[in-house]
């Protein structure tokens, strides 16, 4: 299994500000994935972060809004920029380990007022 931690676990932010979410994995992984779970909804992939290259964003998500860093094989950050109430969600990072099994962090619950 993989141990994944995220910081902060939750935050309440004002409209127009930015929040950076950190994701730390207990061992080196090639790919890290960032998901969003809006209230009452399923998980949607935001982007795939590969160490040493730019993140790959899914349709509907752009780098200016959700910049991602991947400085090494155990760490990544996701920034939610210029936040609006529609950005209120749980943000989760995840990694693949072994035979394609995916492990999730505990999530960051973001509320934008």
């Amino acid at each position, binding site marked *: 299994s993989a141990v994944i931690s995220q910081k902060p676990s939750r935050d309440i932010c004002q409209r127009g500000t930015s929040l950076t979410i950190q994701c730390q994995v207990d061992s080196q992984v090639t790919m890290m994935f960032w998901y969003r779970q809006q209230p009452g909804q*399923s*998980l949607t*992939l935001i982007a795939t972060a590969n160490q040493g290259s730019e993140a790959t964003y899914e349709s509907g998500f752009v780098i200016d809004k959700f910049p991602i860093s991947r400085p090494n094989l155990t760490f990544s950050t996701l920034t939610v920029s210029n936040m609006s109430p529609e950005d209120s969600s749980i943000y989760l990072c*995840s990694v*693949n380990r072994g035979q394609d*099994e995916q492990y999730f962090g*505990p999530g960051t619950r973001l509320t934008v007022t």
Partner: protein
Amino acid sequence: AQSVSQHNHHVILSEAASLELGCNYSYGGTVNLFWYVQYPGQHLQLLLKYFSGDPLVKGIKGFEAEFIKSKFSFNLRKPSVQWSDTAEYFCAVNAARGNTPLVFGKGTRLSVIA
């Protein structure tokens, strides 16, 4: 691109009733299949997974799922539900070629009443 369909948005069952939640996927290649559960206020937990081999897989808490390749289906079953099974259930797939992200269905809310 992959997609996952979960047929039931909200299922309400009495305790001891049998459960079957439908899941169909669309993808042209080989996939891995998963069911996750999310209890109220908690984060995702893996119920079971299918990679290859026996198409009937058993997971935690008495859940099982059957992969029917010809139907592109991976339905979740439990013979007798309990009140504590009240949760949101998500079916997910990824391409079986390593380091690929999961694609989730919209989820099915299960409410078990006494």
